[in-house]
């Protein structure tokens, strides 16, 4: 599933990796992408130990340190953006300081940035767009990156805006690339006014599939009527392309369900280590 690591991928046989997810008591798919990445990274044998903890599932964030034997741990939040969770909840529950590295129970803990903010997420989005609309020329295609959008958390919109700019500048040749949100303008429900290209690929910028990607966004796009909560979940992804409002609409699963997310996690660990080296170099 996950390709073998690039030759440049550094093994850290003495260190541990902790992936943090939100989890859910109601959505069984919420934690799966995080577990899948942990399984894949464990198989690569790059770390002494790989564990996951969650806010709303077991093992809980508070159990994090007890799981590890090793004394150096990289912590990667499997969250789509900086925000309330990565800045308040996680540091509070894990006992992290405001610095990148904290000494906790004799362990050196390095807090990495969330997966969604890494530049390699762009590669994943481009791959996802291409896989969702295979054989469709980018020059006739608009890509729409969809987030929740809420005034409470401006950072999730910021992460999407950054990705939109990066995809535009990537040279992939898409006719248009736009952001859209469920709860604020530009509204995903107005996708046919936001875009003009004949083909439109919609990628939800979430870690996990759930009510938003299975139900809320399809309804807003006009792909589905109101669905009962237990409606067959995958059906909505099997209709590609849907002829709708005079266009061909392609709808993808949440970006975090891509198995290559494991690569982004590893990139985030590399970036964290690089930042630590820079900080050390600046200090001497």
């Amino acid at each position: 599933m996950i390709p073998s690591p690039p030759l440049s991928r550094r093994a850290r046989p003495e260190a541990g990796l902790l992936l943090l997810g939100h989890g859910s008591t109601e959505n069984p798919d919420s934690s799966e992408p995080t577990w899948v990445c942990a399984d894949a990274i464990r198989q690569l044998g790059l770390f002494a130990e790989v564990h996951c903890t969650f806010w709303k599932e077991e093992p809980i964030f508070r159990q994090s340190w007890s799981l590890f034997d090793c004394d150096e741990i990289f912590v990667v939040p499997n969250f789509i953006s900086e925000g309330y969770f990565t800045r308040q909840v996680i540091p509070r529950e894990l006992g992290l300081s405001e610095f990148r590295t904290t000494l906790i129970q004799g362990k050196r803990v390095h807090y990495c940035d969330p997966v969604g903010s890494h530049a390699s997420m762009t590669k994943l989005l481009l791959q996802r767009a291409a896989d969702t609309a295979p054989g469709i020329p980018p020059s006739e295609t608009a890509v729409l990156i969809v987030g929740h959008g809420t005034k409470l958390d401006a950072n999730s919109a910021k992460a999407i805006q950054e990705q939109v700019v990066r995809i535009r500048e990537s040279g992939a040749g898409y006719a248009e690339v736009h952001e859209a949100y469920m709860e604020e303008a530009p509204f995903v429900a107005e996708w046919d006014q936001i875009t003009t290209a004949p083909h439109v690929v919609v990628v939800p910028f979430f870690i996990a599939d759930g009510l938003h990607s299975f139900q809320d966004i399809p309804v807003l796009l006009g792909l589905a009527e109101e669905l009962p909560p237990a409606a067959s979940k995958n059906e909505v992804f099997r209709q590609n392309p849907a002829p709708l409002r005079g266009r061909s609409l392609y709808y993808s699963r949440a970006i975090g369900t891509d198995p290559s997310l494991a690569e982004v996690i590893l990139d985030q660990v590399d970036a964290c280590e690089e930042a630590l080296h820079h900080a050390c170099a600046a200090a001497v």
Partner: protein
Amino acid sequence: MDTNLNEQLAAWIATGGNRLGQIQIEQSDEATFALTHVDDIDQPRDSLILLSDLAAMRAWTRSNEAGDLRPLKTSPDLRPGWLVLAGDIVALREALECLYPGMVAAYFRHLAGRAAPVSLRETLERQTGMYRFARSISDAGAESLVEQVCQNQRCLKRVLWTLTAADAWSCFSKQKTSSETPEGEMPLLCLEPCFLIVAGARLTAKREHEATEKATS
């Protein structure tokens, strides 16, 4: 140097450890382990469904026999009918982490005196955002919430934390708040309140607040 958790798990098995919650562990040779549901101990192995990787174990434990989601892995409704084979102690630990997350670590840290329980009040005081309000829950409201959510019919863990550092629960049997188990059984230890308690405390606190408002208006 301390022995690591996998070594401690191996030593526990070597001295007769074979059960956690609803899981039975059998050792077929020195480093090969078979895990089943305790109800399936006498079932022929080939009548059980082999859960061959962690994803299969997660899928199996996700819901109970009635098809309802199991938000807690230690709820007493683990479906029987499965078999997990672990080729070595590392694979065994991975399987146990999947079936009962964090429980191996909690037990051995507790044995070593390195797992201090965290009280409900301390947990609630720490909360921010939508859970900040949970801290206003009354002592009586907290006791009845904990009794309801943590009872053995809903969660097999032993509740080692208390309301404040100085209290003891009057709602539970001695067994529910102790780490003592019959020989060979690893207790499932709860060292601090989980997300169900924090969310429940918020709801209870809200209801209590509304009831007081109503009574005074």
